[in-house]
């Protein structure tokens, strides 16, 4: 065991990973094949979802190659088996095939609304699943699963970060637009909580519910004109966000508009479309999981390698794909082997730390399996000609450098805390969606 002066919580966290590692060296058999399965949507619901899926594939492939070479140095072999599925049912079938026939020890996926289906299969067959594409809070609460882990940030994290950035910048009065239905209502309620409970001085001056398929924004714009908010938050899907921006732009209102950062709305392709539909309003501030211009903590090198390989910036879904393989590979390497139960135990161990190029050791929250991590704020450029310059990094939250404070508590500044969680792994909190 490592020796140390009196062990603080932080030291215990660091020490745990090290101890597990020492066990690994003895326990991991040489020549063992490590196979990770990934399911991507074959018929993305929109052009934007297709872009995110393409980026995800790129990140998965790059990580497969890099960690494959590393595994070879350790006498191992790493494969990432990619499969496509047109809908949730097909995703379930592909996941089951990957587990039963390809003998993958973990699954990755979740774009295109497939996360819940994949979580169900993973739970039933007891194989860890890493969600890289669905921010729904429901999947981290009533719908949580013991074998599901969330690399994608939760809606609660995104909303807390957005509220913090905007309110601290002086945007106090808000107008919220959300779609009908359970998910829309949940997003609206959580956004209110971010604004009203976490930020003294922020207030809601209006809201509008729209039909998710073909939203009519005319009454919304009229209500918005009357309410005169400082900021509008669109809790809508990618296409609806673009549609709103196109109708909002001619009004010439000064209100800042930002949208909920679904993965498909975090790509530079989406930023370009946003700016094309609304030259002024579409060049606002957006929350992202990753930014290709992040230049610290080893991010420069990661972004540069991706740029060199694919000749395009590393969109957040590409980062998520890359890190999903890295995390699952490390879970097998440091956790004692690729047995699914062992990998799950390593992932959910609060002492486990991962390095995801964000400059701080991150871990999965034990109460809902959400990865603690920093998020970023970018400004879409109104003038940029090239893809690279479409976005500029302007913010990071939580700030990772605050010596003297607990890094875990630092990261837990955004998102739902344990006392707020409705997740009960295997217990009474399991809802009707249990697989």
């Amino acid at each position: 065991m490592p020796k140390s002066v009196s062990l603080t919580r932080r030291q215990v966290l660091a020490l745990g990973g090290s101890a597990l590692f020492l066990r690994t060296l003895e326990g991991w058999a040489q020549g063992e094949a490590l196979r990770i399965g990934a399911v991507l949507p074959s018929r993305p619901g929109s052009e934007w979802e297709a872009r995110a899926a393409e980026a995800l594939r790129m990140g998965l492939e790059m990580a497969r190659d890099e960690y494959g070479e590393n595994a070879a140095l350790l006498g191992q072999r790493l494969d990432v088996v990619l499969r496509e599925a047109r809908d949730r049912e097909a995703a379930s079938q592909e996941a089951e095939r990957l587990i039963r026939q390809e003998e993958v020890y973990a699954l990755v996926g979740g774009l295109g609304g497939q996360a819940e289906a994949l979580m169900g299969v993973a739970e039933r067959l007891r194989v860890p699943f890493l969600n890289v594409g669905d921010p729904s809070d429901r999947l981290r609460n009533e719908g949580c699963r013991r074998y599901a882990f969330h690399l994608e940030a939760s809606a609660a994290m995104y909303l807390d970060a957005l509220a913090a950035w905007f309110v601290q910048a002086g945007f106090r009065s808000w107008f919220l637009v959300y779609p009908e239905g359970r998910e829309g209502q949940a997003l609206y309620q959580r956004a209110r909580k971010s604004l009203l409970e976490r930020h003294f001085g922020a207030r809601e001056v209006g809201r509008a519910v729209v039909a998710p398929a073909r939203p009519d924004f005319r009454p919304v714009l009229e209500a918005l004109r009357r309410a005169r908010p400082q900021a509008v938050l669109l809790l809508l899907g990618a296409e609806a966000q673009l549609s709103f921006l196109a109708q909002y732009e001619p009004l010439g209102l000064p209100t800042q508009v930002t949208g909920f950062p679904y993965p498909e709305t975090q790509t530079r392709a989406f930023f370009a479309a946003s700016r094309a539909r609304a030259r002024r309003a579409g060049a606002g501030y957006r929350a992202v999981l990753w930014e290709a211009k992040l230049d610290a903590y080893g991010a420069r090198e990661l972004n540069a390698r991706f740029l060199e390989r694919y000749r395009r910036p590393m969109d957040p879904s590409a980062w998520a794909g890359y890190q999903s393989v890295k995390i699952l590979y490390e879970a097998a390497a440091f956790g004692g082997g690729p047995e699914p139960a062992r990998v799950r135990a390593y992932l959910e161990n609060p002492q486990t730390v991962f390095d995801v190029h964000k400059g701080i050791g991150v871990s999965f929250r034990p109460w809902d399996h959400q990865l603690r991590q920093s998020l970023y704020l970018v400004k879409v450029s109104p003038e940029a000609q090239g893809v690279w310059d479409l976005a500029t990094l302007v913010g990071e939250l939580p700030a990772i450098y605050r010596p003297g404070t607990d890094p875990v508590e630092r990261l837990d500044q955004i998102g739902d805390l344990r006392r707020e969680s409705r997740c009960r792994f295997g217990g009474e909190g399991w809802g009707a969606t249990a697989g």
Partner: protein
Amino acid sequence: MGRYRWLTLIGLIGFVALLPTSLVQPAVRYRAYVSNEYGASITVLDVATDAVIGTIPISGRPGEVRPRGMAVSPDGRIIYVALSDFQPILEVPEDKIVAIEVATNKVVAEYRVGSNPERVALNPEGTQLWAANENAARATGFDLETGRTLGEFQTGVEPEGVAVSPDGRFVYVTGETSHTVTVIDAKELRPVKHFLVGHRPRFVVFSQDGSKAYVSAEIGGTVSVVDAKAHRVVETISLGLDSRPVEMALSPDGKRLYVAGGGTSAVYVIDTATNRVLRTIRERMGRRPWGITITPDGRKIYTANGLSDSVSIIDPESLSVVRSVSVGRGPHSVVIGVVR
């Protein structure tokens, strides 16, 4: 009594005259060399006075060309500086190792040792240069006598730290992203082992007797103690998850390991007999100490403070910062050269 005094004096003079020349030569003078990553320069300090006695420009393009890791020849007369730029995807003319003569503070040679070299190490004979090529997942060996590349070797992802064992046999290269150390046999020129250490290993240093190596892990907040014969981690020293250890320096007697805690603006002092933290130095430390070194006589410790553009000078006796000196922009590393 007076006559005895005279006799004693004459005797002393005669004794001194018979001493080997080397014992009566003036003491060596040390100079501290600080690589300024954002200033594209090297700041030189006189260790006796801690005064800045010169700045060596490395490139006319500060902010583009970045001097980072450094190594010193065994006799202390040459400083080797790893240069690269901020575009790690490209191999550019600036990707090289420059050699600075301590006596003159002039660049006397340049060597191409693979792309994007981040850190560099020298073998004990001073005949081989080893560089970690960060963007290429490679380490490159270079023969200074023949001017030829010894070989390029695959490493973990994003290699950074590099060190040669005191017997010159093994080269350790850390892989930042894969949390690994790759061991290269410098005689047979082949990789012989690859093993896991803590998360984001930044730096590696061998004990003077070559029995151990220490590997710092920035994200893990640990220092791995490696059996350098078996190439196996035998103990892990935890400094805390948020300790951010980067460069390390061993005291000349090997009894203390000084660890720069970059993002925490601290230096951790480890007792190598017990592997326990003796002291954490925070008071008056510069911001983000990334590099750290100790003078060969063990009397001063220098840290290169990246965010305060300064060097902190620590007294190893009191373990306190005794002086701060402004240097160039973005100090990365610091080493000690010798003027004989």
